[in-house]
């Protein structure tokens, strides 16, 4: 029996007992089985023999179709008990599924919570770094700016001296170059030493020019920066800190809050704790700066 004969017999045995699309579906499955068998190097006849008599197969399919999920013994146990068992199973099934879903939900929520916690910790860490840096700059405030200004003022004459040296070097260099050309033209043939010396002078002068110019530019840059920082701190420093003071005052209306948060800023996870911790320390900083 080859494939088409087998399928034809199977279809004939099922026709009228099952819906058309179901038969089609079954035929598809058996076609696939034939295909696989052929792919494994078997002949269609061999596969057909393996499957057994198509009428028996059809019979089995029909009996399976008629069968209930709880097969075999259940059919002999009578309707009521059977349906009762089935109902109980269904309830158990849905309970199982519900439990599974609830578990999954809980697990997901816990994971999300962990992730959020980690993210918050990360943010807090980066915030702490930022605070440290900002605190440092604020602490340096007026005094720091003054020191920077003083340093710049002390450095400025040196920079100017460098600048003058540079100019001298440039003049010397230019003179050397001119002397070299003249010397080369006038005495070059007689005494080659003079023009070479002059060229060496010119090169050295140029190097000095470049080096001192860079130094001077850097010095001027730092001077300007120091002045700008000083002006910024003078203008905005106090106002910002007043704002912080207001916030700190408002937050610390709760008598325990400030102490609690300040003594243990890492333990409580809320943002208010973070804020109050920051404002408190800022306020202190500002006071410290004031006294200075």
């Amino acid at each position, binding site marked *: 029996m080859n494939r088409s004969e087998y399928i034809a017999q199977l279809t004939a045995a099922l026709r009228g007992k099952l819906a058309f699309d179901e038969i089609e579906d079954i035929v598809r499955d058996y076609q*696939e*089985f034939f295909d696989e068998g052929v792919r494994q190097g078997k002949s269609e006849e061999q596969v057909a023999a393996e499957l057994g008599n198509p009428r028996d*197969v059809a019979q089995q399919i029909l*009996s*399976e179709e008629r*069968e209930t999920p709880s097969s075999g013994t259940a059919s002999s146990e009578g309707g009521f008990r059977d349906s009762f068992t089935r109902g109980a199973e269904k309830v158990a099934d849905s309970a199982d599924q519900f439990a*599974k879903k609830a578990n999954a939900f809980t697990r997901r929520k816990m994971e999300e919570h962990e992730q959020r916690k980690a993210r918050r910790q990360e943010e807090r860490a980066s915030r702490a770094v930022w605070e440290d840096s900002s605190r440092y700059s604020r602490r340096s405030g007026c005094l720091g700016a003054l020191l920077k200004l003083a340093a710049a003022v002390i450095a400025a004459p040196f920079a100017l001296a460098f600048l003058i040296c540079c100019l001298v070097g440039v003049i010397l260099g230019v003179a050397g170059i001119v002397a070299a050309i003249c010397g080369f033209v006038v005495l070059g043939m007689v005494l080659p030493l003079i023009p070479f010396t002059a060229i060496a002078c010119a090169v050295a002068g140029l190097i000095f020019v470049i080096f001192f110019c860079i130094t001077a530019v850097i010095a001027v840059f730092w001077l300007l920066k120091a002045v700008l920082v000083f002006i910024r701190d003078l203008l905005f420093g106090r106002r910002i800190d007043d704002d912080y003071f207001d916030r700190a005052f408002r937050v610390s209306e709760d008598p325990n809050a400030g102490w609690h948060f300040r003594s243990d800023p890492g333990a409580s996870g809320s943002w208010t704790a973070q804020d109050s911790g920051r404002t408190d320390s800022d306020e202190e900083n500002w006071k410290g700066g004031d006294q200075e």
Partner: protein
Amino acid sequence: MNTQLRKGVIELCILALIAQKDMYGYDIVRAMEKYTDINEGTVYPILRRLTKDGYFATYLVESDSGPARKYYTMTDRGRIYLKKNILDWEEIMLLVNSILKGEGNDEQK
């Protein structure tokens, strides 16, 4: 072997196989043939019924040579059903083994 008993056991085997990984019909038959001499014709009707009862879902996978394969995959419902069947199986095993060892002669039918 008794056909009803055999069918139940084959059903459990199919459930257990597909719980491990998605398989297509021929694959299942080959996997079971390794252990026992089964009639290929019996596997497909069982697969069909289990799919119809919602224990399996199917999907087609285009194969590089030849027609598409219908893969069977286990549903949540199927997993519960398998668990239940495994418990039943263990219970039956316990009963049968104890009777075969002669511990429960009064229960023998």
